[in-house]
């Protein structure tokens, strides 16, 4: 059944990637979902390229760090220089944001990047140093489908995370428990599976874990507490790595991660039986993420009707998904950062260390209206008259200064000014006769069981030519509540 294949494959593309691409339209009804998954795996098997977008000025400064003494360099900087560094970092993180979003849209390695996107929310981190951010991003992209153990160790030693969770301040005589707490609560065991004393003891093990200005991990032995610790019923003079391994030796860690993955990739409603089967295998495989994802995406239940079209797309998934189906050039890149901001999901700026809560939290009256207006905004029919909230962490008191900051609430240009390349998309529907056209477009675009009535769409299309019909019907179908789901 080609139709069933198509729906299943689209389901796979939305969940294991950022939605079906226009280039795949002809293939989606042809292949089985197992074949498609194999192809996705293959395309994601290569080591990803390091994304480096840091500004040249910062790179110069960064290169010079070793020559001049570290602390000296910092003290030498004038107020203006410091400001410039901050501003360049902000701009570079904005490039990093837009760059990674473009990767989501264009890469063949959909599975890897989707996985990395998941880990980006799991190991949620805000940091205003672009080099640290790039380093952490590289860690999660490289390990996205590899070993969770390796990733956990690397993330825990990344400058971005050590800084964000204040482990730089975690010293023998003055422990800071923030890092230890979040590692357990959010990265491994989940709440309720450890005691406050476990946190205190683990914090002692992480004392002295730090990073230099270059973002390299440094173990400061004079700040480390070499004494005995009792942690999760084990006693020894544990260091940080050993604490992480003890956490990994708890089956609860496999269960917690699997639950989160199930919620993100399969359904908001947890199926205990399936999660526990998956978690056991994940644990037995010593945390092989690739295997876990294969277990999920090749299972029959993943393609159950109740799982298809049941998840609310996150803003990033929505924005990337539209662009995968409708390749476009954006003259106004600002629009993409503005939309992320107004819809509540900005890459590299998670709301807190717990990441984006997802699900229904994406939807309120204003976010839903804006989501449904995006296709019209892209088409320049509609104009922005919406302002996003300011973010004082990013603006650092510069609300009224104009320095091209992505955190500014107002989009500079009122329109997105996108040029959509419709050719390939339209040619796919060449042979379909007009009566079936809306139905066919809807099958490609909507994953929900029931859609919007074809008659209604018909009233809103531009029927002057077949092309204009396809274009306008597509944009209207994307402007529906159904399109918010995948």
């Amino acid at each position: 059944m080609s139709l069933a294949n198509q729906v299943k494959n689209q389901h796979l593309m939305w969940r294991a990637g950022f939605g079906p691409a226009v280039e795949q339209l002809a293939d989606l009804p042809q292949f089985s979902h197992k074949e498609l998954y194999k192809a996705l795996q293959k395309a994601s098997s290569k080591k990803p390229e390091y994304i480096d977008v840091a500004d040249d000025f910062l790179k110069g400064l960064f290169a010079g760090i070793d020559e001049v003494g570290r602390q000296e360099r910092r003290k030498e900087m004038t107020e203006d220089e410091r400001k410039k560094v901050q501003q360049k970092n902000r701009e570079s993180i904005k490039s990093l944001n837009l760059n990674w979003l473009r990767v989501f849209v264009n890469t063949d390695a959909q599975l890897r990047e989707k996985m990395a996107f998941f880990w980006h929310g799991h190991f949620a981190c805000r940091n205003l140093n672009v080099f640290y951010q790039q380093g952490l991003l590289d860690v999660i992209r490289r390990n996205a489908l590899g070993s969770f153990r390796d990733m956990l160790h690397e993330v825990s030693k990344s400058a971005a995370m050590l800084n964000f969770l204040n482990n730089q301040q975690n010293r023998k005589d003055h422990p800071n428990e923030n890092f230890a707490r979040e590692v357990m609560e959010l990265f491994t065991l989940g709440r309720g599976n450890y005691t406050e004393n476990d946190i205190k003891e683990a914090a002692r093990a992480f004392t002295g874990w730090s990073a230099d200005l270059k973002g390299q991990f440094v173990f400061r032995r004079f700040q480390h507490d070499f004494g005995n610790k009792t942690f999760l019923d084990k006693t020894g003079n544990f260091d940080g790595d050993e604490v992480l391994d003890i956490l990994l030796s708890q089956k609860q860690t496999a269960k917690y991660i699997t639950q989160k993955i199930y919620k993100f990739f399969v359904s908001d409603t947890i199926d205990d039986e399936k999660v526990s089967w998956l978690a056991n295998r994940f644990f037995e495989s010593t945390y092989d993420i690739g295997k876990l994802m294969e277990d999920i995406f090749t299972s029959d239940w993943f393609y159950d009707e109740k799982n298809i079209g049941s998840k609310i797309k996150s803003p990033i998934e929505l924005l990337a998904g539209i662009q995968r189906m409708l390749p476009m050039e954006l003259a106004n890149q600002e629009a993409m950062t503005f939309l992320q901001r107004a819809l509540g999901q900005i890459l590299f700026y998670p709301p807190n260390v717990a990441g984006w809560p997802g699900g229904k939290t994406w939807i309120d009256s204003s976010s839903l209206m804006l989501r449904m207006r995006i296709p019209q905004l892209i088409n320049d029919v509609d104009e922005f008259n919406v302002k996003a909230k300011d973010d004082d962490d990013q603006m650092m008191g510069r609300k009224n200064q104009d320095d091209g900051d992505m955190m500014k609430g107002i989009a500079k240009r009122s329109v997105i000014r996108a040029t959509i390349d419709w050719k390939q998309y339209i040619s796919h529907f060449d042979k379909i006769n007009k009566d079936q056209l809306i139905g066919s477009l809807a099958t490609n675009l909507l994953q929900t069981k029931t859609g919007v009535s074809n008659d209604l769409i018909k009233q809103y299309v531009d029927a002057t030519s077949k092309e204009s019909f396809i274009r306008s019907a597509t944009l209207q179908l994307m402007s529906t509540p159904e399109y918010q789901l995948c």
Partner: protein
Amino acid sequence: MVIKRREFLQVGSLATASFLVPKFLKAFEGKNMVPLGNKVLVILQMSGGNDGLNTVIPYRNDIYYKERPRLGIEKSKVLSLTDEAGLHPALSAFKELYDDGSLGIMNGVGYPNPDRSHFRSMDIWHSGSDSKDYWTTGWLGRYLDAQCHGCDKPTYALELDDTLSLAMKGEEAKAIAMKDPKRLFGTANQRFFKEVMQQHKDELGEQPVDYLYKTLAETVSSADYIFEKSKFHPSKAEYPKTELGQNLKTIASLIFSDINTKVYYVSHGSFDTHINQQMQQQRLFTEMSDAVRSFTKDLKDNGRFDDVLVMTFSEFGRRVSQNASGGTDHGTANNMFLIGGNLKEKGLINAMPDLTDLDEGDLKYKVDFKNVYATVLKNWLAADDMAILKKKYDYLKFV
């Protein structure tokens, strides 16, 4: 009343498409204005971390002037309230409210283990969680959850903005954000959205998409409802042409109607004054003072001042010492203003912060903001504060 009937028909015709019948419309059928005593809460968020020490100024305190040689406000300029406390010179309307017995000042409000990042501390204030917890709903959103369980009243709480704050998001219910009643969803595709909504056959929330349709239906019916109400008795008073001024004017117009809204939320800022604090704070306070003056006068003239409580807050105060750039850095505890014609405690409600007892250069909090929330929820909004805050907090006495 003719106007009401027309309005009912219009909203009704939209709402019939959804499974939600706006019950709130029926409740007010045939009535005139809101009965007096219908309490309203207006939250004024001072975004960015307002410097509380230059807001309510300890102008007889030597430590204050020693720590702020450049930034300290001169004694002679302070709008004196008591022997030890005065207001920033730009807050003249607040001084008038103080003299009038309609201003309460709560000092040293904060929470244990304060966080100095804007987004995190704002999260904590919005959600009402402890600083070690991450809650994904807001305290006013949970108020909505508790007040109208299973009912269709998203207009119980309104935010004057284009996007909705965490504070206003509940588990089930979410408030409405709108800048201008005329264009809650001002878009070329408006008619399409309404028709899409009408053709949807709901399966009683069985399908995931039903949640989106429910939100859409609420948005459409609320938009029309708010628009109608805003025209019912629009404020004729003069307001400053600032954003805050216009937002407060919109709020006043809605308060004068019989809209079911209990909570209004509006933001002003940015108070993140790391540099050039003097100028920035002066400007923001002038705007705030002028807008609040118009608003409170308007409420008084229309006999509604006793039914309104305005509460200000900021995500944190700032450090006691000035920094090297003519500003102040992120700090901890802060003061809150309470404004209304019906305050039970007026003036300085509690002691000024103790500048001799600091925690690494920061003020120690004396009042947990959750106690303020509990008081407002229980005594002003008559809501179940324990269900909303998930814990019992002692009540204060200001309302």
